[in-house]
């Protein structure tokens, strides 16, 4: 018998005679394929998330905080006593060969009022370089300039969330005034949307003002010249470790720290943090992927089991077919096609289920799933392979039956 469409039609018809049995048999493959797709989607999504997060953080950015670290890398003294200064930031930009530019900042929390609207948010005093280092485009308007810094102008750039809360999507806020700490600020721009940091902090929920303005108008004069954070941009991604070492050496020298005294600052390499998170995620996904492939194999065993049952149930049919001229290969193909059709249908449903639940996960879990048609195709291909591999033994058994005994079988 040639393997034609007709053979598939016959197999489909045979399988449809035991609908529940066929459905239950497919289930294993369906779940296997579905979960493989979801797992890979999650894995690729996580990878992409890490990439976009790193890009979103700015070009090759390093952060320097006040306070020391413990050996484990957890930051202790959370800037309670400020140790890094504006001069430190400038020195880093000037003297570290692997650093292209730096910015520095201070932050406070305050009520912001516009007309009858108000919002409690973070006020970040930064320098104009901040926008470049963070590689953060504006939704509308402009970022403040060096001139605004020098003069301490009361201008501000709203984070996207602040803008949405105070103005709503329809109104253009540029040129309007908001009151921060009883000081009126003119809005000159709105930052583009960035979303939350890996740590959970919403980057869109803040207002940027010039660093000098923050020092002079909002934060009091006691800590003038100190910064709570320095943003440094390395010349390339590969140079980040080098840049980190140069900054450490420079700051230790500037802070006159003897060899046996620990750092009074913390350098955070966000790429490392993100990669560590991604690595943890990848291990988990590999584990789940392993479970998914095991379930695919279990599904295959289910198919083999039911095909063996089918072969013994249909022994007489096999005998009849052989008597009227079916070759052993005809019988083999017939049963093999049945198991392949089972696994194909199971696989197709699994693909649909996998894509469906991926959409659900990304919708409900706010997790970016990356689905590629190739992955679905490969998962489906594996399902077909499972059907062939696990269908081979029952089909071979059927084809090896002795026609006389098969005809006599009750």
């Amino acid at each position, binding site marked *: 018998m040639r393997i034609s469409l007709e053979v598939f039609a016959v197999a489909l018809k045979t399988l449809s005679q035991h609908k529940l049995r066929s459905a239950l048999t497919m289930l294993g493959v369906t779940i296997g394929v579905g979960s493989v797709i979801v797992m890979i989607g999650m894995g690729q999504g996580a990878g992409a998330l890490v990439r976009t997060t790193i890009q979103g953080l700015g070009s090759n950015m390093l952060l320097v905080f006040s306070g020391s670290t413990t050996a484990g890398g957890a930051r202790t003294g959370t800037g309670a006593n400020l140790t890094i200064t504006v001069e430190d930031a400038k020195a880093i930009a000037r003297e570290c060969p692997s650093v292209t530019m730096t910015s520095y900042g201070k932050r406070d929390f305050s009520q912001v009022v516009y007309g009858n609207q108000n919002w409690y948010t973070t006020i970040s005093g930064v320098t104009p370089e901040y926008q470049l280092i963070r590689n953060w485009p504006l939704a509308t308007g402009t970022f403040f300039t060096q001139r605004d810094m020098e003069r301490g102008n009361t201008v501000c750039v709203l984070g996207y969330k602040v803008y949405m809360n105070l103005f709503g999507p329809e109104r253009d806020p540029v040129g309007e005034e908001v009151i921060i700490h009883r000081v009126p600020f003119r809005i000159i721009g709105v930052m583009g949307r960035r979303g939350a940091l890996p740590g959970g902090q919403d980057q869109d929920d803040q207002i940027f003002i010039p660093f000098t303005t923050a020092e002079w108008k909002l934060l009091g004069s006691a800590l003038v010249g100190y910064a709570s954070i320095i943003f440094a941009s390395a010349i390339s991604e590969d140079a980040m470790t080098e840049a980190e070492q140069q900054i450490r050496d420079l700051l230790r020298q500037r802070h006159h720290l003897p060899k046996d005294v620990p750092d009074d600052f913390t350098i955070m390499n966000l790429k490392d943090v993100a990669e560590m998170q991604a690595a943890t995620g990848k291990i988990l996904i590999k584990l789940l992927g392993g479970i998914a492939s095991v379930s695919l194999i279990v599904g295959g065993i289910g198919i083999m089991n039911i095909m063996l049952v089918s072969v013994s149930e249909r022994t007489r*049919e096999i005998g009849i077919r*052989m008597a009227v*001229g079916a070759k052993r290969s*005809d019988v083999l193909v017939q049963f093999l096609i049945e198991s392949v059709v089972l696994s194909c249908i199971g696989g197709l449903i699994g693909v649909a289920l996998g894509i469906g639940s991926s959409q659900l996960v990304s919708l409900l879990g706010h997790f970016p799933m990356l689905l590629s048609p190739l992955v679905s195709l490969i998962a489906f291909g594996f399902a077909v392979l499972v059907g062939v591999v696990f269908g081979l033994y029952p089909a071979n058994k059927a084809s090896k039956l002795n026609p*006389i005994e098969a*005809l006599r079988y009750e």
Partner: protein
Amino acid sequence: MAGKELVIVEDLHKVYRMGEMEVHVLRGITLKIDEGEFVAVMGPSGAGKSTFMNIVGCLDYPTRGHYILYRQKVSTLNTNQLAEIRNKKIGFVFQSFNLLPRLTAVENVELPLIYAGVPRKERRSRALKMLWAMGLKGREYYTPSRLSGGEQQRVAIARAIVNQPILILADEPTGNLDSVSAREVMVIFQRLNDQGITIVLVTHESDIAQYARRKLIFRDGKVVEDTGAVALQPLLKGGTA
């Protein structure tokens, strides 16, 4: 009884092994069946009739001896070649009909044509014609469970002859039928024989055997009586008791 030799068996032996035991089912059968004959095979159960039929029907190999079907030495053929002979040259009719219960009458008749590689449309039309010739018009799309025993056996006969075999092997085809259906079936066999198809039929009933023109009586794995043996005398080597 003129015509070509269709079946020639010489010193046919069949031994089954059942663990330590050896069961000698056929003990040297030598005979010849010409094209166009209608042969009844009779004898008590266990005499080796069915085994003889299985070997003649290319479902089984003899342990020893030769079998020549239509000038072809069957004992040397492989399973695929046997399958092809069963498909093209031989039609089987069984006591228990052996129709596939899930298929309709016409689909059952189509089976041999599927394995002969006949295209779908031609298959259907040939199968339908066979059913009509068996007087089953209106029953084409019934499944076997909705057909009477006689009708089922006629479907089975349609299946046996749909690929135009030269030999029909019927193993107690009337064993499960009432006398009216049995007569109908035998009339059909007779008609087929008149058309030139060779028929070998196993039966216990002597009135069924009356339809045949030659009787072979088996006992203990040997042919003890052959009414057509006169013409074949030279071939028999101590077959008669």
